[in-house]
């Protein structure tokens, strides 16, 4: 049986106390809420914190609600199930509710949290393996080794941002409230993620993600997820898109791709091409063609990576079509065919 390594467990009663514990125990400590990411990693000895600080009991981190300024606040330990079912999120930020509702399985959505999913460790099928397997390949640079096996000449780690909610927060211009013993700070989602498989967050080791703040602006938004099976699987592509329709044109276009790099990838060129334009199908095709350029999938998650890159274009197109009121998928048209026998 796969078992957890020994650790010291701390149960803070308040968020402040949690931050103090984290400060006290330094880099050897990690916070845990749902445990659905950290515990499998610990069982595979990918992460080995000496101290685990449990946030599960902190009710103050749990609520989801509208603030007086019109923003919506999602506590970091709100479960994915709570986020998926929340009526405010479903109405105003369906992209986030959808993404939360597509994470893994019903069981894991009862356990896993929004904060945990945003901070999800980057994934790679050279890294998400048992100790024995990783030892057989002499480990990789993300843990215990020197090399990045998916790109052996690379000086950096190419593990993949595999969170469903992370690209959504970027597309929605969410901000995160981070708390530490030194105080708190607010960062933009786009600045929270870093394009590096190892140092994939700008969060400092002593900080706890406490809250997600979703802005008041009313954009239409959606999330499309690509994966092999209807449950269990992490995204091998996520497309989060948001825009506003105004007098026949679209404004505030944001497109963020998930699972195509070590952080969510904001497709700025594509968004700029669409900004202020009438969303005709041909233009959307063109925009989708720009968006997929930022996708750099490698052979370290499920399915063929060249195919995954192609799908970025298809999924961006479908997401944008949905947002502008076109049928996302057109009825298939038979391609011209030379007679091949």
């Amino acid at each position, binding site marked *: *049986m796969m078992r957890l390594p020994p650790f010291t467990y701390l149960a803070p009663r308040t968020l402040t106390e949690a931050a103090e514990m984290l400060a006290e125990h330094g880099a050897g400590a990690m916070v845990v809420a749902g445990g659905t990411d950290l515990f499998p990693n610990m069982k595979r000895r990918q992460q080995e914190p000496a101290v685990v600080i449990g946030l599960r009991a902190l009710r103050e981190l749990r609520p989801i609600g509208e603030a007086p300024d019109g923003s919506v606040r999602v506590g970091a330990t709100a479960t994915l199930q709570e986020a998926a079912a929340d009526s405010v999120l479903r109405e105003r930020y369906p992209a986030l509710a959808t993404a939360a509702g597509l994470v893994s399985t019903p069981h894991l959505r009862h356990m896993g949290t929004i904060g945990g999913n945003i901070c999800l460790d980057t994934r790679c*099928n050279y890294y998400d*393996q048992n100790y024995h397997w990783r030892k057989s390949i002499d480990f990789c640079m993300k843990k215990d080794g020197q090399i990045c096996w998916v790109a052996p000449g690379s000086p950096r780690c190419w593990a993949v941002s595999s969170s469903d909610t992370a690209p959504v927060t970027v597309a929605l211009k969410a901000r995160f409230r981070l708390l530490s013993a030194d105080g708190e700070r607010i960062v933009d989602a786009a600045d929270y993620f870093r394009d590096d498989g190892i140092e994939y967050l700008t969060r400092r080791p002593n900080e706890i993600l406490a809250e997600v703040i979703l802005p008041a602006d009313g954009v239409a938004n959606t999330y499309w997820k690509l994966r092999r099976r*209807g449950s269990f699987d992490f995204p091998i592509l996520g497309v989060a898109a948001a825009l506003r329709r105004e007098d026949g044109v679209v404004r505030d276009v944001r497109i963020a791709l998930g699972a195509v790099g070590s952080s969510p990838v904001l497709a700025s060129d594509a968004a700029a091409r669409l900004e202020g334009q009438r969303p005709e199908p041909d233009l959307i095709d063109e925009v989708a063609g720009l968006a997929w350029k930022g996708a750099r999938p490698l052979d370290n998650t499920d399915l*063929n990576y060249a*195919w995954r890159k192609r799908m970025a274009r298809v999924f961006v197109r479908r997401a944008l079509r949905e947002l502008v009121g076109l049928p996302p998928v057109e009825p298939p048209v038979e*391609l011209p*065919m030379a007679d091949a026998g």
Partner: protein
Amino acid sequence: MIVVDAAGTSDFSIIGRSVPKPDGLPKTTGQARYADDLKLPRMAFCRLLRSTRPHARIRSIHTADAEAMPGVHAVITGRDLPVIYGVLPVGQDEQALCSDKVRFVGDAVAAVAAVDEDTAERALDLIRVEYEDLPSYMSIEDSLSKPGEPVHVGKYGNSHRAAALQFGDVDAALEASDHVFEDTYFFQGNTHLPLEQHACLAQWDPAGKLTLWTSTQSPHYVHKELAKALELREDQVRVIAPPVGGGFGGKLELFQHEAAAAKLAMMTGRPIKAALTREEVFYCHRGRHPVLMWVKTGWSKDGRITAMDFKSYVDGGAYMSYGAASLYYTGALQTVCDRIPAYRWQGVRVLTNKPPCGPKRGHGTPQPRFALECHFDAVAERLGIPVLELRRRNFVKPFSKTINHLRITSCGLEECVEIVTREAGFVQKHGKLPFGKGIGFAVGAYLCGAGLPLYWNDMPHSSVDLRLDRSGLVSVSCGQIDIGQGSDAMLMSVVAEALGARREQVRLISADTDTTPIDLGSYSSRVTFMAGNAAIEAARRLREVLLVAASEELDVPVEEFLLADGRLRRRDGTGVELSFAELVKLAETRNGALVASGSYKPPKLAGPYKGSGVGPSPAYSFTASIVEVDVDPETGWVTVERVWIAHDVGRAINPVLVEGQVEGSVYMALGEALMEEQVFRRGLHKVPSMLEYKSPTTLETPEMRTFLVETVDPEGPFGAKEVGQGPLLPVIPAVANAVYDAIGVRIHETPITPDKVLKALAARAEGKPARYGPTSLPEYTFPRLLVVEQPAEWASQEAHAS
């Protein structure tokens, strides 16, 4: 739903009724204790050190640090378990802990027993193994062409088993054909993925007796192999199979952890538990062989097959396991659905540095069935003959013989096809659905138990002991093991029916090599047919004793009694009526202890040639399936929407369980068709986890319509045939044929993933062949052809057919 009922079920009181499994409530209430649920006083835990190299010579193993670690009871290596063993007499090539070489990442080299798993695991990290790397072979091409020391050094190197058989003059027949077509296919390897990870508990009795409780489909083969590996007499070893959490062919022989745990129990005097992780289960494997296939067929103008030429290149992994049989199975059953007047098959099984392949549901036959059914679909189109029509012109007939000497008895192929095509509206839909929607058709056939045992002998394949208690209890004892397929329920129904007892009066003891009579195990779809027939023989013996006793006691002729469902009555309804318990008391008073045994051995069916041992079976099941898919041509995504399947089960002893076997086969087939694959990268299994080895979930489940066809086989128990494996066969090619119907491309390689579909569509758009799949065969010279005479019946049968 039973749709064809040739004999009627009115004469039976139990057969044909859907009744719950006896293991149902124990399993749903958490009472059933599986191997890893067992616990004994002083129990210690075993973990195995596994190779980190795909192919390497072992220079040295240093265990001193591990031995010195507190909490460690013992550390063993190949020196402690030197014996070479294997499940096949021709495949003695495994060692419980490797001494000289490791042959795949995951091969075991040492084992530790410690106070708990954590301690044992930490001790493994203290064992140092020095390896000398050897060239590794990770594909069929590698294995046949790469220079270097073969995986096993022997006469034939990496191409360790090969065969070439010919029945009839294939070249002349092809020459004389109006049309000849050929195609190449690749069936990717995949694994069983039982939910229960292998586990065992070993206990040594210092008086010289070893008991092993283990998660196995064959206590008998584990018993034999374990005695050999431990250098014990077979009578010193007792193997007990507790309820098994899924097998599908993956738990059919001795595994390294079983031998290691047993040895450690003998050395430490403590009960030793070994429970594998999911990663280790992938290393045990013995799953579906990757097979590269080439098929060529000749046809007459009117759509009759004139000849078939078939080659299989089989990737065996690092050991033989059941591989000699697996190899022959890729050539044996091609002839069982379609009448093939001239047939040549050449096959080779090569060794590679991957976990050994072996028997998985359908054992060696799903791969060629995939190739054939896709090929026939394409041939029908090329000939311009509707596929159903083409197929019907060629189907085998009941009670006939194939060119390779297989005896077909009952055969419901026509009926199965009739039902699924009607229910699915196949003729109305095929070729006529909108682009992106498709419907595909395929058939298949499978064994009801192999006609020959794994090791040569003329003893029974299954035996059943019955004992009647004066309470009316019927105690049934049989070595068979229920791995979930419902064989316990089958035996209870068969015994109760044959004896005339109520089903509730039957108790079953099974799967214990000390206390139950032989049954070879749950494989080859043999248990219903063989244990069922053994049970009927035992029950009829006791029934006669009961009836004769009653006849003498009551002075009523035996023929005038009706004994069924726990009651003895007179046919004319007059006179006394006895309960089953009263009848037993009466008979026991007159005869003494009421015990009887029955056994079953298949008739001698093998043809007159070397290699004829694989393929014969006392009967064959037949299946037809239709699959409807949606294919998104922009993404290549294939969604299976509906499956219709009709299976000729001979007789449905317990219909609800038969349906469950059919549906489970469809499920496993869809996984293999669309997503499951055992693949390797840099010498390692790429995805040894439940998350990344993709097993379909509830959300991938299509609508399924299941139909049972009863043909009442003359030799099956109450006419029954197999159902556990056959229904898997046609589903995989039916998916591929449906994809073609949907978007006009043929995917000649499993699994049918969306990237392959898009590549085929791109090829089609460029005017290249509208397919995805292998285009060449490796360089290999097959052995000299063994030319076999056609069966004596062939000429008259042909005359009759035409």
